[in-house]
């Protein structure tokens, strides 16, 4: 049974070198299920029951997506809106996700410098991620600091490879952490 569920939400995975590499490395690991939302639901008609079963079976959920307009791509927002139902993820008896880990693995087009008080966007990534952090907390999940890759379009192959190593390291920590907890 896979213990990490990777919710991958990229509308054009074929053209994203970084995210392709991340998916590639994740799919070589045991106990990791990569779930490509845009492949499964090109028409946005999400199978809520199937998604909830996937979540229930996982111990940690990694959200792998680019940052579009200070948020996630549209299908992932639709996924959050429909799958994380009251009575399942939050509210009375909504405890199915409680205790699981939430890790966002995100990429931005802009430089690291753009994400600070004096930069183009005036705020840091942590602030922009507050909606996701709150979502995780409302579901009783452990929100981990996001793994961010800036300048994703222009990044060199070498930096991609370094980034992938960090990602792999985090996944293996999550897996051993999960094992220890049990």
């Amino acid at each position, binding site marked *: 049974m896979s213990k990490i569920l990777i919710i991958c939400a990229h509308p054009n995975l074929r053209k994203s070198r970084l995210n392709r590499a991340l998916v590639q490395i994740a799919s070589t690991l045991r106990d990791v299920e990569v779930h490509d939302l845009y492949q499964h639901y090109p028409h946005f008609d999400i199978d809520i029951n199937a998604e909830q079963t996937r979540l229930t079976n996982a111990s940690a959920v990694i959200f792998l997506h680019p940052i579009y307009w200070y948020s996630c791509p549209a299908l992932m927002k639709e996924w959050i809106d429909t799958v994380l139902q009251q009575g399942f993820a939050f509210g009375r008896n909504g405890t199915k996700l409680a205790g699981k880990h939430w890790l966002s693995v995100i990429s931005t*087009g802009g430089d690291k410098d753009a994400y600070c008080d004096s930069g183009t966007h005036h705020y840091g990534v942590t602030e922009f991620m507050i909606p996701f952090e709150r979502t995780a907390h409302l579901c009783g999940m452990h929100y981990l600091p996001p793994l961010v890759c800036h300048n994703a*379009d222009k990044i060199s192959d070498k930096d991609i490879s370094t980034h992938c190593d960090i990602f792999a390291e985090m996944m293996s920590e999550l897996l051993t952490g999960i094992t220890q907890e049990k």
Partner: protein
Amino acid sequence: MDHGGLMYQAFIFLLAAVISVPIAKRLGLGSVLGYLLAGVAIGPFALGLVGHNVENIMHFAEFGVVMMLFLVGLELQPSLLWKLRLPILGLGGLQVLLTTAAISAAALAFGLPWQWALAVGLILALSSTAIVLQSLNEKGLMGTEAGQSSFAVLLFQDITVIPMLALLPVLAITTDTTDLASGHAESVVGLSGWQHTLAVLGAVVGIIIGGRVLIRPLFRFIAATRLREIFTATALLLVIGIALLMGLVGLSAALGTFLAGVVLAESEYRHELEAEIEPFKGLLLGLFFISVGASIDFALLAEKPLLIATLVCLLISIKFIVLITLAKIFRLQNNQQWTFTFALAQSGEFCFVLFSFASQNHILPADVIDPLIVVVALSMALTPLLMIINDRCVQPLFLRNTTETREADTIDNGETDVIIAGFGRFGQIIDRSLNLSGYSTTVLEHDAVQVENLRKFGHKVFYGDASRQDLLHAAGGDTAKLLVIALDDHEKVMDIITLAKRHFPHLKIYARARGRVQAHELHKAGVDGFVRETFHSALAMSEQVMGALGMHAYEAHKTMRTFRKFDEQHLRDMIHVEQDPKAYISNAQKNRAELEKVMQADEEDPELLEQQHWGHK
């Protein structure tokens, strides 16, 4: 000119068929009547293009009937045949029995001795397998109750020919033993009664066992040679061989090949055999019908028109009464009863065979046989006409009868939001999804059979033609908000639009379009919306196929959407240039080039088509 030349004869027959059959078909008369008329036209009593050897040609062409029964057999699995045993024996048996009795009685009334009367009754009781099956097939009626029952009766009649050949000589009044023997010698070569029975049994068992054991490996061997013409030759050899064998033991060739067909119905070469024999059958049957037409003795008809006409009417009436009585006893459906009766109310090709047999064996004198042959031929020629009468005059009565009761239902539907015209594959989906969203619908369907089927599934469907103003009114044309026209018949769609625009102008109209041209017409007619009937399903399939080829699902979906957007835009653009075919084509080419350019550019530079994702420059 040399009338006997084979090429000349073939030319005349083919020319007559090629001219008259398409015309007959166009006029809705069916191909059989076309062939018969062609025969009359080239026959000795009209243009006189064929000599008096029509009889020889007819004997040759009778082989078409044999081939037809082989093909019929191929279509019939033994299990189906077993299922038909009751209609074959019951319906078929009673038909032959009652018709023989009635015709014999009539013949007695005409002052014939009882032996002659019985012989005439037996012979005329048979119907025409060739004409009936061909006509029913052409009308697509073989699968119906009437078609199956007709087939059962015809099959029994074909079987009956054998005992008739045995029985008829007994009825000869001038017992001339030498002649009798020579008549018999044709079929049963010097065999005594029990030997003959053994021979018959042997032949039948031989066909069954041979068909099961020998034929399959033979065809496998032949098929392995990959020589198509040898396969054709083998198929023909098989049919002709069986026909000869049957002739040798005195059975009907048609019955033998039918049996062989049934035996082979379960073999894997069934479809190949069908394909090989079919064209021969078609041509020979055509030839047969032409020769029937050509052999009608108009001289005799001109000589005794009243007698012949009376006899034809009498024959058809007797058959008609017997058939409709049987149809009622065997409880065929109302409209099927009439199709069955109209189809079988003639005498058939076996009558010619049996009459010539009767004449050779001095069972019947020529002055009885000659007018009766004309009667038989005329009754055959009248069959397609009778079936047209059934189609045009009798069958609609049943539709109207049921329509009236169904129309009465329409009123109880109350006011609904939507009227849906046409409840085929298209309308059903619209209706179901509208009902799911809580909209009420009134559904009109003009196909009575479809209405019956849908009723069984619990759909509330009203029989009726939505292009009639009173019906559209009864369906709630004044109160409904919207009309969906989901018919596939474009002419009808246009009629309904015109009608609705004139009488119910407040109705919004959404219509199914067959293709581009029809979509333009719908647009011009001012519909509020249209959908090309296969456009979206083809797109859905293309999306699936792109996915299957390895494209990412979302990318495939977007490609499909791009195509859809361009194609729909193109459709709108073309509405204005539609009148000029040259501009139409050049515009279509331009559009295709443009789409290709866009898809190409998208590949190289994501900015052009795709929504540009901010932050990912």
